[in-house]
């Protein structure tokens, strides 16, 4: 590891307020030209050699393919699958065909769920309502949810089995709130909304592109809408609670276990 690190010496960059690190470059004067010994081979390796040494390591393809698989499927691939993915990758070290093969694999569509990483969760909600990346807020919101892109907690990256705790749940709540925020319903739209709990739930589901919910989750949503509408003890409340409840339902759907996982 130390020898590889020496091979990677020589990079420099400037720091600019605002954009941060810029003008990333290799400066031979800062490179350690001496001999290194890596994986049993010796030479005056530089950064390109360092990459080649990793790629040519006999365990690289299986390690890489396995890691890629785990981003999509929570169970380990069976031996034939693992072998075919490896040989696909060995052919010319292209990543795309491997991802294609994983995305087409039945294990992706059946079997246990995975908790979505914050970036996937945020992107999924934005996509569901056809909204693009139009603000930088996603950076701090994802950070609140435990995943600031390009800043993993340590060199082994994020732990995909440990996304959710009480602090990151609050982060996801904020993500959901910010995604739907520009479209949140107001008093003006109340008259056009139904007052039936089931119909309110349907409307909120349509907002998110009609995701599939388990019947128990739907029942919890209907329960909320029924109780909240039941609190309306005056005519003006019966009208204005519709939009409040509709907004609340959108929020609840987005933070439900069904949408936190896939």
């Amino acid at each position, binding site marked *: *590891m*130390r020898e590889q*690190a*020496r091979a*990677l*010496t*020589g*990079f*420099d*960059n400037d*720091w600019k307020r605002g954009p941060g*690190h810029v003008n*990333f470059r290799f400066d031979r004067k*800062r490179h350690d030209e001496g001999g290194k010994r890596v994986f049993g081979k010796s030479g005056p390796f530089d950064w390109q050699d360092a990459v080649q040494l990793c790629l040519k390591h006999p365990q690289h393809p299986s390690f890489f393919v396995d890691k890629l698989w785990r981003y999509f499927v*929570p169970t380990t691939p069976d031996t034939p699958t693992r072998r075919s993915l490896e040989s696909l990758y060995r052919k010319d070290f292209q990543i795309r065909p491997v991802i294609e093969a994983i995305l087409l694999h039945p294990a992706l569509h059946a079997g*246990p*769920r*995975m*908790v979505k990483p914050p970036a996937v969760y945020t992107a999924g909600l934005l996509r569901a309502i056809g909204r693009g990346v139009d603000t930088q807020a996603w950076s701090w919101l994802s950070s*609140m949810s435990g995943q600031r892109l*390009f*800043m993993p*907690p*340590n*060199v*082994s990256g994020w*732990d995909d*089995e*440990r*996304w*959710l*705790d*009480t*602090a*990151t*749940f*609050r982060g996801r709540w904020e993500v959901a*709130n910010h995604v739907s925020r520009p479209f*949140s319903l107001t008093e003006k739209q109340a008259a056009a909304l139904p007052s039936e709990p089931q119909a309110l739930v349907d409307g909120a589901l349509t907002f998110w592109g009609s995701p599939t919910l388990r019947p*128990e*989750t739907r029942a*919890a*949503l209907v*329960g*909320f809408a029924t*109780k*909240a509408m039941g*609190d309306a003890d005056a005519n003006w409340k019966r009208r204005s*609670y519709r939009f*409040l*409840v509709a*907004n*609340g339902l959108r*929020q*609840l759907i987005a*933070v*439900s*276990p069904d949408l*936190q*996982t896939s």
Partner: protein
Amino acid sequence: MARCCNEHSRTDLMRRVAAEAGRGLPAIEAGMPMPAGTGLDRRSFLARSAGLALAVYGGSSLLPRAFEEGIAAAAAAGPQRVLVSVFLDGGADSLSMLFPSGDPLYRRLRPRLSLPASTGVPFAEDDRLRWHPSLAALATLHQEGKVSVLPGVGYTGPDQSHFTSRHFWEVGATNEKLRTGWLGRYLDRTGSPDNPLQGLSLESRLQPALATATMPVSAIDGPDRYSFSTRNVWGDVQTRLLEAIGSLGAIPTGGDAALVQATSVARQAARLREQLLPFTPKDDAPGFTSPVAYPQDEDDDFPRRLSGLAAMLGSGLPVRVVALTAPGMYDTHDDQPQELANGLKLTAESLLAFQRDLEARGLADRVLVHVWSEFGRRAKENGSNGTDHGAAGAGFLIGSRVLGQMIGEFPGLAKLDDDGNLRATSDFRGLYSSLLEQWLGADAEAIIPGARSFALPKLLK
């Protein structure tokens, strides 16, 4: 600002690696351990799920109204002792915190960095040592008999990697494979399946020392900051919406591990929110007030977190073990003096205010603070006005009940180890075992591997 070594900060690591590659990359060893609480294997993950599933189906206490029941249960159990773990991140320089002014080798090893004998207060228990001027607040508490100093705490076979050494301290063993924290294992044995506040990480991410296998724990920035708002939802409907988080947490999962996780967190969030409801600011009024003044700092929330903690304890919330990171950057490879002084000052003054706060609230007899760092620093200074990674370092126990006597002695500079580092005169695993047995009333053998093989220091008055 001083630069810490690349390996040091977990959060900033990748960025620093990119930024400082020209200076040589950090040595990160093969088999570097994962922090506790990460990378749970399938089996332990399922075991954890099963524990949480019990909580889901355990009865009425799972629903949002559980707040009163939780308080009632905690009150019925009587006031509980609390342990607060404060981490000096980066390997704090013990030879500056308590500097060996009376050791003839001190000025020879530290020609630039040595502090003059005219500064700081003498350390009453060893006339070779003086308190760093920035630790005056700790010196005051020591004088009152409320600080026990560990002048050379560490372990045999010291590892000079931040990752590895910190991991050892977090899991309470020199075992790279352990995935639960030592405080987490304590909660797994003695905790409650429906009280996330029992293990409290007072920052936005879980402190690995609190990582449990089965019991819920929580992470919050402050007791007054755990609120859930939604655009254009207010009044009665908002109340119902917040209740509904608890309903999401009660939806059956069919045993799917990811759904169990997503459901459990909704339930824990609902419960935690209810527990912290009294601290929610109302109409711009703060969520809590402190009987004493804490240091003010624009950049660091540490004093605020401690004052929030004292308020939570004052209200009787069932908090048992707490972990948080101290202000400051202690990986002082260069430009050490200012960086170190700033961090130590804010840390010590905040801890003094916290102690005074607890005293004012009548809680001081049941709270103990443990201050630690993953290692000390090399006795000999380096060429960039700083110090490099060492072995044994200093630790402190603070509280009205602590014995107020040194645990292990200052090892001196004449007998350094082969790398030029201080030798340990006490072992952190022995300290943990004593904390578990004498303070928390738990069986140390069941929590710290090989607890009986270490000397267990007497900690309390």
